[in-house]
């Protein structure tokens, strides 16, 4: 069952044609990864889905509903939340306040409380630092915070933009473990990564993006074996 359907989307930055007829689908319960080089349009894709950018052509459907007429914050209400590129935590607010903002649009106090507990048990480090100003967290902790904050929206679909960026290998591994765990608990994930190696291990399916177009799309296993992917994204000859 397709949760997200992106159909022939064209997105522009002024005259720059960043997405040239991109299509992809994400099924309920899946982890789908979108890999591509710098400037391929990965972030642009996520921003188009989340409604921050509006496509000039094509459509984005979430749960069988066209998102064209909804503004970015309304799309969050529908169940799409984002872990932005570079984490985008509110560095001058505390950890607790950051998480609370993730649940900004919700008013089910009991549910929010439960989700706090869930996030804190997923990331005990965040609980220890809940009163600390987020800007003073380490890079890995900030990534946990950004992920936890996105979870606080109780999303059905979570968009993650390069969560492994700038982290030590050991932390990268634990981030991917967390992604797996979040998915196991029922959240669908669209994961943008340059670290194709790790992404293709955790994901079920993958898309390869090149200069605004999908050039390849297959199951994660097949992509891992694909010659072009091996050469261009896995650093193997």
């Amino acid at each position: 069952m397709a949760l997200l359907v992106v159909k022939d989307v064209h997105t522009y930055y002024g005259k720059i044609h960043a997405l040239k007829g991109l299509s992809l689908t994400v099924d309920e319960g899946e982890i789908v990864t979108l890999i591509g080089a710098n400037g391929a349009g990965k972030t642009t894709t996520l921003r188009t889905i989340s409604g921050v950018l509006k496509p000039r052509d094509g459509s984005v459907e979430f749960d069988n509903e066209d998102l064209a007429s909804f503004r970015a914050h309304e799309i969050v209400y529908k169940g799409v939340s984002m872990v932005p590129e570079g984490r985008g935590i509110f560095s001058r607010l505390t950890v607790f306040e950051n998480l609370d903002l993730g649940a900004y649009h919700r008013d089910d106090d009991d549910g929010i409380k439960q989700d706090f507990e869930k996030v804190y048990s997923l990331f005990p480090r965040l609980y220890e630092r809940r009163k600390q100003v987020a800007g003073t967290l380490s890079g890995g902790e900030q990534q946990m915070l950004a992920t936890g904050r996105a979870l606080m929206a109780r999303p059905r679909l979570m968009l993650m933009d390069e969560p492994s960026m700038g982290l030590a290998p050991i932390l990268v591994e634990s981030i991917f473990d967390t992604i797996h765990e979040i998915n196991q608990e029922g959240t669908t994930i669209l994961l943008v990564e340059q670290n194709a190696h790790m992404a293709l291990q955790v994901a079920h399916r993958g898309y390869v993006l090149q200069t605004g177009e999908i050039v390849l799309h297959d199951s994660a296993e097949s992509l891992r074996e694909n010659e072009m992917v091996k050469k261009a994204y896995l650093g193997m000859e």
Partner: protein
Amino acid sequence: MNIRDSIRSGLITFGLILFLNLLGLPRTFGSPTIILFTVIVGLLTLLFLRDRHDRKYDLPSSLLNGAIIGIVAGLMLSLVTFIFARMQADGIQVKNVFAQIFPEHTAALTGISADDVIAGVSVLPGLIKLTGLFMIAGILGGGATRLFTERTQAYRTQLATSSAARWLVLGLPFLFYALFLSLKIEGVDIGGSDENILGLIFIFIFIASALFAIRGANSGRERIVYSIGLIILILILPQLTDLFQNAILGAVAIFIVMGIGLNIVVGYAGLLDLGYVAFFGIGAYSYALLSAPKSYFLVNLPWFGGLTFWTGLPVALLMGVAAGVLLGIPVLRMRGDYLAIVTLGFGEIIRLLMLNLRDYTGGPGGVLNVPSPIVFGADLGNPKGILYLAMLFAIVVAFLTTRLRDSRLGRAWLALREDEDVAQAMGINLVSIKLMAFASGAGFAAVAGALYAARQVNIFPDNFTLLVSIDVLSLIIIGGMGSIEGAVLGSLALIGLPEILRSVNEYRIVAYGALLIIMMILRPEGLLPSARRQRELHSEDETVESASAAD
């Protein structure tokens, strides 16, 4: 703090003093200027040395650095004064270039008479004395730094536990209150020529120290007890003060209301609004036009008898909120500098409308005979009544603002200030929270405006110039962004003090400028910032401190 830093600080000090010189402070004040300058040098030294973060320096090096600051500032000023003196002795009219530099100016700084300056008597002894004075001031400032840092260290480590020091801080406000009261007692002479000015100064210090005491309270409950105590004392105050004092306190309180309102827009939501006076003006004119007997606006409606203050107030509030939303909509997409410029323009447009829509607003002639507020038959159209009303407004506005700040909306404003894009991705409706910020800030200003109209009785477009926006913005910057106590303190310092020191009034803008520059360099968070602001701007110090504390 090394020698180079000291020289640099000395040059900055000199720059400020030169600025005051060129504006003619010495010529206006005569020889007391030297005392004023000496005090400035001492204070600046203290500030410069204190904020260098190096607590490891010992007393001698603090004294040495202070001396260097003083000598540099003194020598530079002497050099300039010497050049002026030579030119004046040669009959060159310096004042043709620098409008305020007369022989009297040189005379005030060197202690010889203006005639002697023109006659070419050597000014060197005077200049040496001046430099010496500055050096001593620098040394004293440097020494005071030591006291200061030792005291703050003690504060950090002990004050929380040492009850004596704490009681002193908490007791100070009462001391100043008592000093003020003692002025009222027949036969007690504290030695001020102008008793009511001295009384006001005691009141200001009383309120300021009470604010610091509230801030220093170590539990939420204690804070509430002191806040209530302060409010009660302040409510009694207008009974003890005279007309003149009440009038000044009334102006202070009206600006407190505006400061708290602008805090929402600038301090919480981070939207730089330079046209805040527009809403103040709209509030004032809304009430005035709908209530004044010869109002140009509604004179032709026979069935309309005019509003009273209490019916006019909600109208003013609504007009303010509507104007806030109206300004908000076109500027929603703007950020930073652009927003500042557009709001600046908006403020001027409103004033020009008041000035030019003669048929509706009365134009430059203003609106005359605005009725005063009546409560249970009592006419509050006197300084005491206005002061009470203004205090009531300030308390209500402060309460509402605190509630807003602690609500979800308040949190969203902070997120907006940090990163608009991410805030939106968190499901925050940027449009509505920006409009909420503009609207609530504007509403508070409009309420202040209506009260202002009642206070002034006659209002004119000239009451609503850009200067008012600058006043309000400066007072929240100096008092401390995002904090209600800060708005009170800022208003006392920037609205109350200049009213008292009438003779300095012309220099108000200069003083603002200098004060703002110094504050931005040394204490960017303001005097009494919100705890959050302080954390933001000093998080580095804190981590360093906690790291060293952990050692």
